């Protein structure tokens, strides 16, 4: 963030490194204009997700009634083109549907929320797993309860060297 601010011409920048985490830890108050429901957020580890997706892919990711078995919500969209060309260049390879959007895209976007199926398993994917709880808690307010986060995020998937594919909108080979 500091780099982005510097690039836009500001010259006097300091960083409060502790962030919200340390601010709250020190017992300080925070402003909360849109609290999120304090529901329990569950995570799946990368090996379990791999197994789940492998099994789902065998069935083309639909059940006998043509309902999706698994849907991924990948909200890792990079902040800059440079980020997008590196970490976000790849997504989890699967026949199951991946909804790609930024976290804030879900605010005031009923269509995007309605697009999340009510059947099957849903897994949210962010960079490190640290932002999943916000999305999951937010979506629970809109009747979406069947969502688990990926523990340690896409980094865990990449570290495990599990299959990836080039993110469709970034695929320059076609």
């Amino acid at each position, binding site marked *: 963030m*500091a780099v982005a601010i510097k690039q836009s011409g500001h010259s006097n920048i300091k960083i409060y490194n502790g962030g919200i985490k340390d601010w709250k830890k020190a017992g300080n108050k925070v402003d909360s204009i849109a609290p999120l429901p304090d529901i329990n957020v569950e995570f799946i580890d990368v090996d379990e997700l791999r197994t789940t997706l492998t099994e789902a892919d065998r069935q083309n990711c639909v059940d006998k009634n043509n309902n999706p078995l698994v849907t991924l919500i990948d909200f890792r969209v990079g902040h800059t083109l440079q980020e997008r060309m590196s970490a976000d260049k790849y997504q989890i390879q699967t026949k199951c549907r991946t909804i790609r959007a930024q976290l804030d895209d879900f605010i005031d976007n009923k269509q995007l929320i309605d697009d999340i199926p009510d059947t099957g398993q849903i897994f949210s994917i962010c960079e490190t797993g640290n932002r999943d709880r916000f999305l999951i808690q937010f979506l629970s307010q809109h009747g979406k309860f069947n969502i688990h986060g990926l523990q340690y995020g896409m980094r865990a998937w990449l570290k495990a060297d599990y299959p990836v594919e080039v993110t469709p909108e970034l695929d320059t080979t076609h």
Partner: protein
Amino acid sequence: MIMIKKHILLLLISLLFFPPCIYSLERFDIITTADMEQMLLDRENGKIDFLLVNGLDRMIHEYAAIPGSINIPLSSYKKYSSRMGSDKDKLIITYCMGYR
């Protein structure tokens, strides 16, 4: 010796192609929680002036933010950067979640 000079020359030439990335080598002064608490108190008492800016997603900012913060979601930086105003010399303190 000639090989070393060649490598140095290649490195210098390659840096010409990456000027935007040089910003990432910047080092910024870090302030502590105690500093932050004092500075906010001083701002309230009119002793100092600065902008407290976070790059959190709007959803996260609205869930929890340090009082008196301006939110400029990093994912929409260009759209909201004008919230920092036009004074390019004004002190800006930036923060995020405290972990990635």
